[in-house]
C-alpha cells in the first residue's frame, strides 16, 4: 500500500499544493497547465479519431446489419406475390377453360379440383357461386353446396372486382385458410364466381424461411393490423399486432428504430399487392446490432485504456519535470541567497570601514579629554584643578560617548535577516538611515545630498532589510560614480495611491549606452577590481521580489538616475 501510495504521489504531483495565502503553488499551477496542455494535444486527437471512427463504423455496420432485413422483406414480397399470382392464375384458368354449365357440374368440378391439387399444393376446395351469391357447385371435403354468400363482405366486393384474396381465417377444421375468388361471365352474360380455398401452409413456409435470418420474426398482417400468421414475438395468429401499422408503400420499406412495448426493433415490411397482406420481418434492434455493440465496447475500452495510459504517462513525466524544475529553482534560490549574503557582507564591510573611522574620531576626543583630566589632576604644584573645567571635560566625554552609541545603534539597525519579512516601512526615513551611514563619506568627499519627499507619502508594507540593501547598493553606486563635490538628489514621491517612486539622481560619470543594457546582469561591473558585479543584479532581484520596478536613465558624463517603484501593498 505504501509503495502504491508513493507511486500515485509521484504521478500526481503533490507537494505543498497551496501557498500560505491559500492559492495553488507556482509548481502546482505549472503542473496543471502542463498536464492540461499535453493532454489537449494528445487526448483530443485520440478522442476525435475514435469519434469519427465510431460514427463511420456505426453507419457502415448498421447498413451492413440492417440492410438485409429490407432485402428479405423485398424478396419475400416477390415470392409471396408469385405464390398468390400462381394460384390466382390457376383459378382463372380453371374457371375460364370450362363452359359455364360444366362448372356447375359436381363431377366435373371434382375433376378440376383434382387437377389443380396435382399442380399446386394447399388447395382445399373449390366452388362456383352464381350472381345471387348461392354456391351452385362445390368440390371439397365439406358440404357447402347451396350455401348463401349474398350477405358476406367479400361477395359484395366481388361485384366490383375480378379477383379477390381474403384474409386468413380458421375453417371448419380449425385450420387457417384463405380464399381466392375470380369472376367470369357465363354465356348469357351473367357473372359467376369461381372460389378456391387454400390452406396457408405454403405461405407460412416461405415466411418461416424469412424469419430464420438474423434472429428475426416474420409474419403477415392484414390491413387492420391483425396477425395473419403466428408471430414468435407478438403472439398467435388473429391477435392484434401491438405496434403501429406502417403506412402504405409500394416497395419494401425499413424502419430502423421502432418502439414496440418499450423495446426497440428494426422492421422491414412490404405490402403484398393484390392481397390484404402485409409482410413484416422484425428483429430486436439490440440483437441485430450485437456485432456493433461488441465493436463499440471494444472501441470505447480501447479509448478508455489509452486515455488512462496517456494520462498516467503525462502526469508522471510532468511530475518528474516539475519536481526537477522545483529542485533547480531551490538550488538557484540557495545560490542567490549566498550571493545576496556575499553582497550584504561586502556592503557591511564597506560600512564597517566608514563606521570604524567615525568611531575613531570620538574615541580620539574621549582619549584627549580623559588625558587632559589626568593632566589637570597630575599638575605639579598641588593646586586642586578647576572643578568647572573638569566638569566641562567630562560633559564632553559623555556627549561623545552618546555620539558613538548612535553610530553603533545605526549599524545594529541594519537588518540582518535575508528572508522576506513584510512590515510597515516609511521609505524616506529608511533612506535617511541609509544615508546616515554614508554621511561622513559624503562630508569628506564634499558630496551634497538633497532629499525631496512628497507630503502625501504613504507608509508601505514591504521588507525593511531588502529595501535597506537596495538603497544602500544604489546610493553606494551613485557615490562611486561621483567625483569630489558631486550632487546626489533623492526624491521620494507617490506616483499613485498604490506606488511609491524613489529617484536617485547623481551627476557622476554616467553609463554608456553599450553598458546600460548589461548593468542588471550578474557579474557585470565597470569598477574593475573594486566591484563584484553583483550589486545591481541583486538590487534588480530585490525589486522583483518586492513586486516593484527599477530602471535607469543615464548619459555618459552627465550622470545617472535610477528610478525604483515600490508597491504600497506587496501583492502576493
Amino acid at each position, binding site marked *: 500500500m505504501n509503495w502504491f501510495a508513493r507511486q500515485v504521489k509521484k504521478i500526481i504531483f503533490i507537494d505543498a499544493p497551496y501557498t500560505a495565502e491559500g492559492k495553488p503553488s507556482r509548481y502546482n499551477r505549472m503542473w496543471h497547465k502542463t498536464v492540461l496542455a499535453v493532454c489537449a494535444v494528445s487526448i483530443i486527437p485520440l478522442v476525435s479519431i475514435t469519434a469519427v471512427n465510431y460514427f463511420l463504423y456505426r453507419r457502415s455496420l448498421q447498413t451492413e446489419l440492417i440492410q438485409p432485413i429490407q432485402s428479405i422483406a423485398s424478396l419475400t414480397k416477390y415470392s409471396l406475390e408469385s405464390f398468390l399470382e400462381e394460384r390466382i392464375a390457376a383459378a382463372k384458368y380453371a374457371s375460364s377453360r370450362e363452359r359455364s354449365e360444366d362448372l356447375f357440374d359436381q363431377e366435373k368440378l371434382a375433376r378440376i379440383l383434382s387437377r389443380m391439387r396435382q399442380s399446386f399444393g394447399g388447395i382445399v376446395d373449390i366452388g362456383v357461386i352464381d350472381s345471387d351469391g348461392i354456391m351452385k357447385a362445390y368440390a371439397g371435403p365439406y358440404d357447402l353446396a347451396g350455401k348463401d354468400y349474398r350477405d358476406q363482405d367479400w361477395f359484395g366486393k366481388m361485384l366490383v372486382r375480378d379477383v379477390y384474396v381474403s384474409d386468413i381465417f380458421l375453417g371448419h377444421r380449425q385450420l387457417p385458410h384463405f380464399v381466392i375468388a375470380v369472376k367470369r361471365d357465363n354465356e348469357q352474360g351473367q357473372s359467376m364466381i369461381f372460389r378456391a380455398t387454400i390452406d396457408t401452409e405454403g405461405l407460412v413456409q416461405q415466411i418461416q424461411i424469412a424469419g430464420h435470418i438474423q434472429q428475426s420474426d416474420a409474419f403477415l398482417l392484414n390491413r387492420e393490423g391483425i396477425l395473419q400468421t403466428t408471430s414468435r414475438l407478438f403472439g398467435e395468429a388473429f391477435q392484434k399486432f401491438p405496434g403501429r401499422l406502417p403506412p402504405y408503400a409500394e416497395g419494401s420499406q425499413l424502419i430502423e428504430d421502432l418502439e414496440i412495448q418499450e423495446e426497440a426493433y428494426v422492421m422491414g415490411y412490404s405490402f403484398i399487392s393484390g392481397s390484404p397482406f402485409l409482410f413484416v420481418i422484425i428483429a430486436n434492434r439490440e440483437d441485430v446490432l450485437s456485432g456493433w455493440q461488441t465493436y463499440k465496447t471494444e472501441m470505447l475500452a480501447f479509448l478508455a485504456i489509452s486515455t488512462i495510459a496517456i494520462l498516467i504517462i503525462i502526469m508522471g513525466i510532468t511530475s518528474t519535470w516539475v519536481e526537477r524544475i522545483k529542485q533547480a529553482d531551490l538550488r538557484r534560490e540557495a545560490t542567490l541567497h549566498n550571493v545576496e549574503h556575499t553582497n550584504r557582507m561586502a556592503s557591511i564591510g564597506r560600512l564597517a570601514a566608514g563606521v570604524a573611522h567615525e568611531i*575613531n574620531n570620538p574615541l580620539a*576626543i574621549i582619549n584627549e*579629554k580623559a588625558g587632559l583630566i589626568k593632566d589637570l589632576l597630575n599638575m605639579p604644584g598641588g593646586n586642586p584643578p578647576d572643578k568647572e573645567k573638569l566638569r566641562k571635560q567630562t560633559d564632553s566625554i559623555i556627549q561623545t560617548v552618546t555620539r558613538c552609541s548612535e553610530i553603533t545603534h545605526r549599524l545594529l539597525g541594519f537588518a540582518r535577516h535575508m528572508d522576506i519579512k513584510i512590515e510597515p516601512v516609511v521609505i524616506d526615513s529608511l533612506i535617511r538611515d541609509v544615508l546616515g551611514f554614508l554621511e561622513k563619506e559624503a562630508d*569628506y568627499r564634499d558630496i551634497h545630498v538633497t532629499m525631496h519627499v512628497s507630503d502625501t507619502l504613504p507608509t508601505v508594507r514591504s521588507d525593511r532589510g531588502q529595501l535597506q540593501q537596495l538603497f544602500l547598493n544604489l546610493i553606494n553606486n551613485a557615490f562611486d560614480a561621483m567625483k569630489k563635490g558631486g550632487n546626489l538628489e533623492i526624491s521620494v514621491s507617490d506616483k499613485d495611491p498604490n506606488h511609491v517612486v524613489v529617484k536617485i539622481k547623481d551627476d557622476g560619470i554616467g553609463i554608456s549606452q553599450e553598458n546600460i543594457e548589461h548593468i542588471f546582469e550578474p557579474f557585470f561591473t565597470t569598477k574593475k577590481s573594486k566591484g563584484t558585479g553583483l550589486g545591481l543584479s541583486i538590487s534588480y532581484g530585490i525589486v522583483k521580489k518586492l513586486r516593484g520596478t527599477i530602471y535607469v536613465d543615464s548619459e555618459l558624463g552627465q550622470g545617472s538616475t535610477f528610478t525604483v517603484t515600490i508597491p504600497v501593498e506587496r501583492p502576493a
Partner: protein
Amino acid sequence: MEKTLKVLIVDDEVDLSGTLVERLDLRGFDAVAVQTGKQALHQIQHNEFDVVVLDIKLKGEDGVDVMKQIKQIKENLPVILLTGHVSKEANEEGLKAGAIDYIIKPIDLEDLIVKLHEAVAAYL
C-alpha cells in the same frame, strides 16, 4: 633651556584639536589648532611653525592634498599625518606623499610628543 616647539594642529574636530592644544601647551609646546586646510595654509604663510599635525580626512578636503600645498609653501616643514586608518597601506601612501610620520587615532600623547621631537630633529 629647550626651545618651545611651535605645533600647528589641523583637524576638523574642534573638540579633539582644542584638547590636544591644551595638553600640548601643558607640556610646554606652543600649539595652535585650525579646522580647515585653508586656515592651515594661512597660518603657515603668516607664522612660523616647527611641525604640523594634519588630519588625513578633513571635511570636504583630502589631508594629503593639503600637505602637498603646505610643502609647496614650506618644503622643510615636517608634517605628521593624523589618521583613523588602521590599515598600514593607506598610511604608507601618506608617507610616500611627503609626510615624515603618521599617528593613529586615538592618539597616544607621549608617542605623539616623541614623534614631534623626532620630526623636528629630522629637519634640523
